[in-house]
């Protein structure tokens, strides 16, 4: 190929006209905002900061580090869920089963711990089980060409039904390891603290960022979202990747279930109903296109934080019913989807 390199230096094709620095900065910002890749994430980040500042101005005590950290503490399981969901949505799929799988893994954990199993066996077992469930869903989607919506809907009913097979009522967890993991606060100095769940969630986020950004598997996930056919013609392992994202989502649901039991210290068949929709909302608000191809894990984390901060504001307000959270989230989702359309359409 070296021969190609000593090409005659002809006038290069696209010539970028030089402009004054101020206008160039404006153009860069404009470019970033309308980029389907970065635009929505930037908007979400701006929105999060704006909401946080509004809260700080309105309510005394809102502007503290602990309020921010509590967003992470209260939503660590949702962050993990959203990470798994990001993989799936990036390929253009969807996973409706995650809420039910969270409940199922909580139920299984609670009942096994009740019969005296050790947590060091229960947790790995749960993660394997939920990954296998994800694998089955992925195979169903890939081999039988079932719509992800339908396949994961089936998995959702299956998992929810299995919850009732385990027990019809709430099982509380008294295992000392779980209790201590639930109650431990890790001090960060200056009256700030987090829980072990936060650390686990952040580790998951870090791994996911690395996988999506720096591995062939991760780049193939993006490729599938932009065009499965193109990916196939480029010789990428499309089939394997498509199945694997559901395994990842299953694994994340299992892990989120474990974190959720740390949070509630019980298993109950009716928990986490609708959580899959929260996860999807967080991913979309975080700037991931529902059709796939564009989005970041960190965007999804931001999405979770936006949901959390709205909830916190409503708590601070005191007089509003918690259902207002839902209304705000609904409105936000609508705005975001329209915004994504407008921003990316402007570019054409």
């Amino acid at each position: 190929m070296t021969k190609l390199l000593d090409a005659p230096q002809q006038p290069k094709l696209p010539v970028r006209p030089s402009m004054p620095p101020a206008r160039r900065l404006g153009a860069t910002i404009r470019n970033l905002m309308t980029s389907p890749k970065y635009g929505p994430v930037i908007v979400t980040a701006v929105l999060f900061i704006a909401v946080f500042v509004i809260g700080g101005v309105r309510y005394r005590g809102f502007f503290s580090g602990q309020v921010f950290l509590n967003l992470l503490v209260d939503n660590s399981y949702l962050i993990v869920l959203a990470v798994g969901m990001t993989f799936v949505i990036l390929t253009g799929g969807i996973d409706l089963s995650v809420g039910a799988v969270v409940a199922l893994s909580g139920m299984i954990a609670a009942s096994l711990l009740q019969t005296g199993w050790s947590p060091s066996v229960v947790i790995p077992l749960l993660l394997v089980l939920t990954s296998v469930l994800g694998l089955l869903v992925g195979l169903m989607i890939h081999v039988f060409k079932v719509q992800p919506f339908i396949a994961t809907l089936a998995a959702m009913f299956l998992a929810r039904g299995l919850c009732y097979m385990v027990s019809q009522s709430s099982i509380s967890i008294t295992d000392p390891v779980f209790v201590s993991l639930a109650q431990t606060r890790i001090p960060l100095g200056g009256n700030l603290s987090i829980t072990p769940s936060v650390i686990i969630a952040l580790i998951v986020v870090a791994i996911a960022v690395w996988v999506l950004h720096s591995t062939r598997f991760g780049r193939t996930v993006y490729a599938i979202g932009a065009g499965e056919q193109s990916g196939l013609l480029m010789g990428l392992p499309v089939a394997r990747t498509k199945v694997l994202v559901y395994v990842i989502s299953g694994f994340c649901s299992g892990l989120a279930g474990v974190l959720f039991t740390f949070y509630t210290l019980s298993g109950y068949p009716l928990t986490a109903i609708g959580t899959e929709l929260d996860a999807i909302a967080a991913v979309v608000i975080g700037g991931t296109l529902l059709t796939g191809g564009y989005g970041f894990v960190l965007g999804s984390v931001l999405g979770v934080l936006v949901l959390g901060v709205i909830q916190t504001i409503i708590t601070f307000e005191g007089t509003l019913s918690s259902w207002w959270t839902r209304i705000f989230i609904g409105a936000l989702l609508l705005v975001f989807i329209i915004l994504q359309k407008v921003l990316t359409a402007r570019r054409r």
Partner: protein
Amino acid sequence: MPRTRTPYSQNRVGPGGRIRRRMPRDRPADDSMESTVTNHTDPPTAVVEMRGISITFPGVKALDDVDFRMFPGEVHSLMGENGAGKSTLIKALTGVYGIDAGTITLAGDQVSFSGPAQAQAAGISTVYQEVHLLPNLSVAENIMLGREPRRFGSIDWRAMRRRSAQLLAGLNLDIDPGSLLGDHSLAVQQLIAIARAIDVQAKVLILDEPTSSLDTDEVAELFRVIRSLKEQGVAILFVSHFLDQVYEICDRLTVLRNGKLVGEYLTEELLRIDLVQKMIGKELTTLDDLEQRARSVVVDESDASNFVNAARLGRRGAINPADLPIAVGEVVGLAGLLGSGRTELARLLGGIDRADSGELTIRGKATKLRTPRQAISNRIAFSSENRRDEGIVGDLTVRDNIVLALQADRGWFRPIPKKRQDELTQSYIQALHIRPGNPDALVRNLSGGNQQKVLLARWLAIAPGLLILDEPTRGIDIGAKAEIQKLVFNLAENGMSVLFISAELEEVLRLSHRVVVLRDRHVVADLENDGLTVDALLALIADGSVEADDADAASGTSGARDAVLGASETSDPLTIDNVPGGRR
């Protein structure tokens, strides 16, 4: 070569006019190598050897017993009209489609690819017709995806950018490898696809219509790269419908027609006019009875009798401004190669695409067609060449397909009564001999010819004033073809105007009162079909160097052909191959 160009006149002899190198069927495949490649001027071994390839899609034989070979250090072109099987053959070679019969040998080893990844690993690198890249990823990734440089399991982004910057520089393309692919024009994307393909140390490089969105400089750049790869011994398959480019870069040609092999030729030994004739082919003359009757209609020259009059009608990137009057009861044939603008012009008249210049007058009234619906309400029906995707609705019954356009025209709030639907369907089934004659049969189970008849029935049901038929007889058997041709003829006698597009020139000549010839998105001639011959049309299509004004005079063939052959040596004033078509 033993089958060097047969003299022009002899080429037309024989059914199908096929000149074909053929090994006896009964010979075992293994020992046939020596005897089939009897050509002493050829390089010793072919890097790709495809033998007896057949691929059948439901209802269509896409490739029928095709042989194809490529030599290292040679640029080979695959020529043929739309539907000839070029893309299918390429996809068979690159593992996208499995083959139903035949063998593929790569550098002496028989191979059977189950996917593009395997073909790539074996050294076959491909740039497909449509750009198959990922707009959401960076330029660098699109070049390197699947073989990214890695360090400790992580993608080494810096090495990746560096390598892709080198490759882009090799194509003289100065863009930031970190920028998003989707931000670049189609032409640049095309070059990026090529950069991706040449990064692999490929034995075989396949370029399917790589120049369709490139301008002259970019094509020159691409050709420089192709020549440099050729010197390194890469076998290159260059597919393009721009004849000038094919003749500039290719050493060898393989011509396909209707999924069958026509022959393999050295480019320098095959005149353009012969090539075009081989691509378009000859039809059996079973339809002679129509011949005498076809030209009996006297067309009034005055504008008043024109059903449609297009004046300088054009659309950027599709068809240059063209004049096309069509009189009531007149059959106008459009002749030209694929990509010449024949379909594009018809689509403007059918309201499928909007014209961005010129005027369209329908029945003396200036009209702007924005949607097919408007065209239908002006009694213009457009039957697409893409029968499967833009024509039939396969999962609906024959009856539903036939009443579809009429129902749409009436509006959905005035449903056609069931009884009327049945009458209509029955009458068309009988009139057009649609088989099976069952109104409840699903259309996808019908043969191509019968599907086409169902489509015709659909459009006839709305009683159009102008019927636009784009390749109505492609891929259907001879009997159905004859019936459709007769039908067109009878319709015109009853006062319907017809715009008839076909790659088969005999068919065009047999049916048309007038023939409009297109080349490279220009109308190059508008001829009365009075003593016109296939040869004259071929000459116009192949080179278009006969000025439109002289075309009438030139229709006496031999003079025209000489003029064409002479002109092909010099630069051709009408060659606009490199007009940057689809770009703004």
